[in-house]
């Protein structure tokens, strides 16, 4: 006798929802597919009508054109330096501060933390002019440091790391205290390794934000050899007379996104688990 047993799979999943999401996913992908399609077409052909995207032939000429422009690699390196520098800086400062706010006792701890939280609501516009002037004094414009520094003040990282440190059982650092470890050693050797998932989360966010930053590099990196990729691409986009073909623009979009997309694809699993499983187990 073989009657179908009831199977409890439905408890947390729902196939209909999944398919709706899949359709949304297709819609989500459509603009990207469109751009990729355009980027693979000859500009002249596109001039006659963009329906051409749906038919052969395809070409890589737009990418070849981009690759030949030598500055792109310089911009890429700048973006990398800035994004990595900012990520390391934010992780370091936020971890130190997060640890102290979550775990250590010192005068005015709560007050300071609340003040820092207020920093979350400060929009960049409210400080950017004064910042620009300050960097002027110290000759920091058109330097990597100058591009890295401003976002180190982001309160978000401190907030996040404080939460993560709070989630670690207190007994762990108490055990280390009894093990005669100094406060810094407790931080460095015991607790910091436990926040690795959190570091990954914050690191990824910081990296992406730095990579995509627009306004500050625009006004701080005013020399071409200090351009980041975002600024560089934007600067080369406005050639009025020739009004780049859609294909070339598409290729630029794809090309400029490529590094992060590759990083993303490689680390996707970590990113996803980092974002979702950030809590310390």
């Amino acid at each position, binding site marked *: 006798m073989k009657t179908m047993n009831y199977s*409890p799979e439905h*408890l*947390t*999943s729902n196939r209909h929802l*999944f398919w*709706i*999401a899949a359709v*949304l996913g297709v819609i*989500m992908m*459509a*603009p*990207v597919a469109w*751009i990729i399609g355009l980027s693979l077409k000859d500009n002249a052909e*596109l001039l006659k009508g*963009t329906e051409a995207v749906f038919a052969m032939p395809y070409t890589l000429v737009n990418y070849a054109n981009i690759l030949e422009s030598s500055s792109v690699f310089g911009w890429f390196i700048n973006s990398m330096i800035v994004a990595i520098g900012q990520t390391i800086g934010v992780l370091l*400062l936020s971890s*130190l*501060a997060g640890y*102290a706010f979550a775990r*250590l006792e*010192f*005068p005015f701890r709560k007050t*300071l933390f609340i003040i820092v939280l207020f*920093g979350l609501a*400060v*929009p*960049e*516009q*409210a*400080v*950017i*002019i*004064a910042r620009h*002037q*300050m960097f002027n004094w110290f000759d920091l414009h058109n330097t990597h440091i100058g591009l890295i520094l*401003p976002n*180190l*003040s982001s*309160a978000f990282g401190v907030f996040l790391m404080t939460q993560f440190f709070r989630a670690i059982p207190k007994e762990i650092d108490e055990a280390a205290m009894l093990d005669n470890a100094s406060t810094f050693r407790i931080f460095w050797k015991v607790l910091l390794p436990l926040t690795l998932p959190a570091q990954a989360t914050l690191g990824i966010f910081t990296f*992406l934000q730095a*990579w*995509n930053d*627009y306004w500050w590099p625009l006004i701080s990196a005013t020399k071409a050899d200090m351009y980041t990729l*975002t600024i560089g691409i934007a600067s080369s986009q406005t050639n009025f007379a020739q009004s780049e073909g*859609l294909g070339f*623009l598409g290729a*630029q*979009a794809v090309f*400029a*996104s490529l590094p*992060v*997309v590759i990083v*993303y694809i490689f680390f*996707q*699993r970590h*990113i*996803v688990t980092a*974002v*979702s499983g950030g*809590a310390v187990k």
Partner: protein
Amino acid sequence: MAESYRRSRWSNGLFVVPYLSVFLTLLVFPLGWGIWLSLNKVDLFGGERFIGLKNYARVLNDPIFAQAVKNTVIFVGVSVPTLVMLGLFLALALNKTTKGSSFLRGLFFASSILSVTIVTLIWRIVFIPNDGLMALIFEYFGWQPIGFLSTTGWSLFSVGVATVWWCIGLPMMLFLAALQQIPKDLYEAAALDNASRWRVLTRITLPSIKSTIMLVAVIQVVMQFQLFGQAQLMTNGGPAGSSRPIVMYIYEVGFLRWDIGMGAAASQILFLIILCAAMLQYWISTRKEEVDA
């Protein structure tokens, strides 16, 4: 008699010194300076003269600013609920361990990694008349074409679409994280309690992630109030200023008109608005909590 050992000590504060020094020099100090500038008649290249609150009066009396505030509020009012609900929906639909759903999760998050220049480039190429993807689709179905970027009403909508497309990843991820924290046995208990799917959603799932919903909403409100790049690059605030957000107003006043004082004043007003919105939400959520407890 010697003091017995205490854990609270000044030296522990050293850990926050590096961050606090950056925080003070790069955020608090410029903020204070910004406030000072807002009280002065000053342009990009000097000419500082104290004029009290006049800049604020000018900003608040400027119909363009009023329009920008209205645009921004509408934008936040529509895009944030959309982001929250869509993010929640996606999280619910993709909260599984199958290959398909992890692929889709990756896909929906992927757009968040693109920079604003790219996102707007993509969407401009989608929305442009004649050659755009939307134009092709409309043509295919024989519909009347719409000037998505150049029609009052549609322009802000289009900016919103691009924004939601760009920003949906983070809310989805945060919701997924929250959903995965819900113990599985709650669902089992609900199954034994004969709960329908709808009841499970409304009575178990949503209440369990209430705080995350609040968190996501606050983050998004703060972020979307700072809308700038999308509007600047897609519609340039137009037509007729119908998609000009507050930040763009600040940008125009400060950098096109060189009126730094007035721009600073508008910035401080934006800061205040964001602060109030965030505090209001925080207050609502904590107050609800207390009532519940």
